[in-house]
């Protein structure tokens, strides 16, 4: 169905269908964000001997996030007097828009995807890099020293971790010969890339967590040092936009890890009768759970150590992985 649509001539009908599908995806993602936050709080609560939300919306706090968002919407929207007003208003939008744009290339199943771009992986990484600009802008425009430091940290961190992130997937590109995410999933029929590319997986996971600004790499927000980092002056729905962007990225990044390392919609052997969407959801959930688990377990790494780790450890390892993959590919000739 999707191939037909994507290949068809541009028309109002096509536009309408895509628009509708995009709205569906928007709701799926927003629904995910709503319940990912709840799940995060519940899992954290479980690991930290607490209950987590358990009042609003029945027994499990099912409407807790909805209530939180409503509260944020009706909150007073404060803009500091000396802030750079236009930039201050624009920053959350810049941070948030790419988060949704990257979702276009994620193949959720073999039939359900929005764009079949040849350079899908590159598109994802390029677009997600834009969010940094939003965060730096927000940190700068707030006219707050803590926000500025948070923004600067964010810039340094996200740029340095994007490089190992890209380098680690080059091994996979070598093996598949394509940047297209659909092709990458198809290439995993003989075994997921987590098995063929374990080093790349570890590097990618670490760099991904750093990209997501989550513990142990949550330096831009670093609650205990920078109070709240780049969004210290933001309140109400503008703040919600930053948070939304963060969780949509979590959704996107978990999807990407599922697609390039865990075989996307591909089933485990002998369990092919379960639909691809279920497999995708299962793998995706595992990745999300691991991200939450990280958050509960680790302390925060220090800014200078973070840089050192990125440039002196992750990058060389990722580069070595490229050579290793190339040599193995030539010698074994499996792909």
């Amino acid at each position, binding site marked *: 169905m999707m191939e037909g649509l994507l290949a068809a001539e541009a028309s109002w009908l096509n536009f309408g269908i895509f628009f509708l599908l995009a709205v569906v995806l928007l709701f799926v993602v927003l629904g995910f964000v709503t319940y990912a936050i709840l799940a995060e709080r519940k899992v*954290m609560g479980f*690991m*930290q*001997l*607490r209950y987590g939300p358990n009042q609003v919306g029945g027994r499990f706090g099912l409407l807790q996030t909805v209530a939180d968002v409503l509260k944020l919407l009706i909150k007073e929207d404060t803009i500091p007097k000396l802030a750079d007003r236009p930039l201050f208003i624009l920053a959350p939008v810049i941070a948030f828009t790419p988060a949704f744009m990257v979702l276009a290339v994620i193949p959720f199943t073999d039939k359900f995807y929005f764009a079949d771009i040849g350079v899908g992986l590159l598109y994802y990484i390029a677009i997600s890099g834009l969010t940094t600009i939003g965060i730096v802008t927000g940190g700068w425009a707030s006219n707050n*020293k*803590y926000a500025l*430091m948070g923004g600067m940290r964010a810039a340094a961190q996200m740029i340095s971790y994007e490089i190992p992130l890209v380098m680690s997937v080059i091994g996979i590109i070598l093996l598949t010969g394509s940047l297209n995410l659909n092709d990458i999933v198809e290439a995993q029929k003989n075994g997921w890339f987590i098995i063929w590319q374990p080093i790349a997986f570890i590097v990618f996971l670490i760099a991904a967590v750093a990209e997501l600004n989550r*513990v*142990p790499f*949550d*330096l831009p927000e*670093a*609650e*205990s*040092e*920078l*109070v709240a980092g780049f969004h210290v002056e933001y309140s109400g729905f503008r703040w919600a936009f930053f948070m939304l962007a963060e969780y949509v990225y979590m959704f996107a990044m978990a999807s990407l890890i599922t697609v390039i390392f865990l075989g996307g919609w591909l089933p485990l052997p002998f369990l092919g009768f379960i639909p691809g969407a279920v497999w995708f959801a299962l793998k995706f959930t595992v990745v999300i759970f691991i991200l939450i688990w990280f*958050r*509960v*377990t*680790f*302390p*925060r*790494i*220090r*800014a*200078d*150590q973070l840089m050192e780790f990125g440039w002196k450890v992750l990058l060389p390892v990722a580069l070595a992985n490229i050579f290793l993959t190339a040599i193995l590919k030539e010698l074994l000739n499996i792909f």
Partner: protein
Amino acid sequence: MIRTEEMLLNVGPQHPSTHGVFRLVLKIDGEIITEARPVIGYLHRGTEKLAEDLQYTQIIPYTDRMDYLAAMTNNYVLCHAVETMMDLEIPERAEYLRIITMELGRIASHLVWWGTYLLDLGATSPFLYAFREREMIINMLNEISGGRLTFNYMRVGGVKWDAPEGWIEKVREFIPYMREQLKGYDQLVTGNEIFMNRVKGVGTYTKEDALNYSLSGANLRCTGIKWDLRKEEPYSIYDRFDFDVCIRDGGDAWARYHVRLSEIGESLKILEQAVEQFPSEGAVLGKVPKVIKPPKGEAFVRIESPRGEIGCYIASEGKKEPYRLKFRRPSFYNLQILPKLLVGQNMANLIAILGAIDIVLGEVDG
């Protein structure tokens, strides 16, 4: 050339990691601190001045509010000073109750430090684990004293209440439980690579520095100086217990971390022996005159609080109220080395260094 400017940054008094209303005025160059100036006094309540108009028993609740994480030791230092002046005899059972409550308080205080320090470093879970254990201690102290934080438990000449039925048993059961949890703490945090990188070699000072800045408690013992008043100048009945003074050599935050964690173990040892030797009956309040009037003169006593040496100086004119009361508050003295440690460090280390000193603002500001 890039033109850079130093930035003046105000950390606190409302900041998540200053552990209260502590303010630091920093000059920073990028993230590197070039100058640090602590500003204290936001929680100053004038305890010492207020005490001049109060009878000795009335001062005890004020001491609770100085180091509110280890109020029992504060209670004790005042009572101990008055008792020293009046040469009072303390009943055996009261001494044991004092030791048990003080050591429980010490464990609770170190647990709060452990949890909040890790929270400062960005790990959220240890805080909640530490507070689970602390809650048990607080509940026990609540049962015996009626208060969870400000106990007002000790009196000149003994303690206010006897232990309720089965209380000693609870303490006894707590000891093996706590030992088990300590292992878990080590597994979760101590071996963590990120944590080690955050604290090793951070905030290092030498023995000489420690002595010159008159640091005490874990801040002194982390440099390898074996000094614990419970051993060096045993007060109360500490000479009856077998325990070690925990020392480390590094002089950095990592050493301080280890000293505090192993001190929990040593406190458990003391508790174990105290519970064993606990006299089955006896009075808990000695023969004390109705109105406490220490003779004319002065006295200074010092004991080992979880944070260091806490001292109490009393100048008496033979009246119901002290002429002058002065506390040597360890947090205040320990904090003095901070500006020296901070220069040249970055913002993230600021938190690691300040947290490792273990201050309680109620005590710093008096």
